[in-house]
């Protein structure tokens, strides 16, 4: 029944769908109003935080002002102040920028490691694959949160860079596994065999044949990872194991809410940051899901 009608549909699609990149993706996003809205939001918010962050003086914002502790939102401070009298609004902007930047950085680094690892393991298979998968399995069973917290706690000369390296070290496995399994499938397809018999070298086959065919998967996965990484970073900062204390972050703002007084009575400290995290993650996820839909339709028969 469905299988059959799907078949019928498939045949008709063969003739009409184009596989070429962006037009399809763009069409899919535009058709999905929520994804379009999310994209506009993301572009807008990034432009705003990166733009204002240039003007804003981070030093000024993180300076303690004992005369302005816990001020409620008002004329002087749009979103009030925290226990150190620091402007929440300013921290929110810089925090969003920092959170976004590190999430993007970690996503790109994990994506790079994951894609290379997955492609090599999947394409060459055999013993290479076996050993690589053992390594991956080990990283995979470690509870991420715990191991990152321990590393952050003991690493000497802790900085934003070491933080992102630690996160990357324990986050590349998901995408690597995914890419590997796709590469395994892909390399059994005849066009790869054909390339081999035509005298194309392995490196060329990996990057010119396999990679373009899994690029949509890479993009979708990285988008979804970006959302997850925003959550992970703010979670770690929330626990106090993310950004160094001097650097504002969305998670740090939320961590003030572990004080019951703040949680109950001083909403302006933690609610805006929560809303920001939620909106960012939802928006990125929406775009990612729309991308996935776009690529799925194409994957039916590229």
């Amino acid at each position, binding site marked *: *029944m*469905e299988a*059959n*009608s799907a078949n*019928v*549909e498939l*045949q*008709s699609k*063969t*003739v009409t769908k184009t596989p070429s990149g962006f037009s399809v993706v763009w069409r899919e996003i535009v058709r999905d109003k929520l994804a379009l809205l999310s994209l506009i939001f993301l572009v807008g918010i990034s432009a705003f935080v990166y733009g204002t962050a240039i003007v804003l003086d981070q030093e000024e914002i993180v300076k303690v002002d004992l005369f302005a502790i816990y001020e409620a939102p008002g004329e002087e401070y749009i979103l009030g102040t925290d226990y150190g009298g620091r402007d929440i609004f300013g921290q929110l902007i810089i925090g969003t920028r920092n959170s976004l930047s590190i999430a993007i950085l970690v996503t790109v680094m994990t994506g790079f490691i994951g894609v290379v690892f997955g492609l090599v393991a999947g394409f060459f298979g055999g013993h290479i694959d076996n050993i690589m998968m053992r390594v991956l399995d080990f990283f995979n069973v470690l509870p991420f949160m715990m191991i990152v917290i321990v590393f952050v706690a003991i690493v000497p000369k802790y900085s934003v860079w070491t933080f992102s390296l630690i996160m990357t070290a324990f986050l590349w496995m998901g995408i690597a596994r995914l890419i590997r399994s796709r590469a395994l499938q892909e390399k059994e397809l005849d066009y790869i065999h054909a390339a081999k018999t035509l005298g194309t070298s392995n490196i060329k086959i990996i990057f010119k044949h396999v990679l373009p065919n899994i690029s949509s998967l890479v993009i979708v996965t990285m988008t979804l990872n970006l959302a997850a990484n925003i959550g992970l970073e703010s979670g770690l900062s929330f626990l106090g194991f993310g950004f160094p204390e001097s650097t504002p972050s969305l998670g740090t703002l939320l961590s003030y809410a572990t004080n019951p007084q703040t949680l109950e009575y001083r909403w302006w400290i933690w609610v805006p940051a929560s809303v920001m995290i939620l909106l960012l993650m939802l928006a990125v996820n929406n775009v990612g899901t729309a991308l996935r839909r776009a690529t799925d339709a194409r994957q039916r028969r590229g």
Partner: protein
Amino acid sequence: MAEKLLEIKNLKTSFRIKDDYFAAVDDVSLTVNKNEVLAIVGESGCGKSALAFSIMGLHTRAKMEGNISFKGENIVGISPSKLNKLRGKNMGMIFQDPLTALNPLMEIGDQIGEALLLHNKELSKTQRKEKVIKLLNKVGIPRPEYVYEQFPHELSGGMRQRVVIATAIANEPELLIADEPTTALDVTIQSQILDLIKDLKEDMDSGIVLITHDLGVVAEMADRVAVMYAGQIVEIADVTTLFEEPLHPYTRSLFNSVPNAKEAQDRLHVIQGIVPSLQNLPRIGCRFAPRMPWIDGEAHEEHPEMHEVKPGHYVRCSCYKHFHFPEESKEEEHHGVS
């Protein structure tokens, strides 16, 4: 006179693509008698499988119009519970790919037993098992007690297809639908499975609808043959007539394009153009006309009908009278992209 088992009248099965319905089976009428094999032959996308699924009521999202009467009773649009009383008991189906047709996580015995359980509640568990073992024996599976407890992936393709057949015939159905039953199998296994189906038919006196694309299988198995093209039946005749005097241009082209293991041909006939997709089917006039452009347009009927040329031999459209193969030199292969 043969006893009518299944009579299909003006059946139209349509699938929804985007916002429109497109008929994959378009105005099909045919009959199947007891103890008779009706082969439905055609290329992929001609609607033969959609037709088989329509008879079994397996399309859940298609629109069905027309009439399918099984032993005199219309089964289009009847309630699911009524349909379920017929399926598995009076009608059985054999699927194309025996691997996917069996539940991978269920023992063979349970899968065959399910067909018995559903239609014969009185059987005790032991009786059911006995019967399943008998069925396994009947379809030629060695060591049935052992196979009873195996899982599909432990059997070879041929054995799996025997299990599927055992399930289909568990309640000795009067009508058996076989959808490309041997396409996924090797040629030696194919001949065994075909022989098995033939023997079972004689045994149970049932009617068989055999869906296939393989003219050899048709010649081996069928009593009567319906040739389908683009959702319609273009020719029906008994098997010898069809193989000796095919009339419809499509039938004739098809016969000429198959390499034959028994006699040598110099060059195969090529049907011009490509099989149109469901959305692009020509719905008016002779559907095969675009693929024989050298035949004068006047030769076709405006609304092609089935004509009874001889008793029992029906052909659609009158163009068969004017059809001839193109001359060698003129036969231009399909150039460029359509």
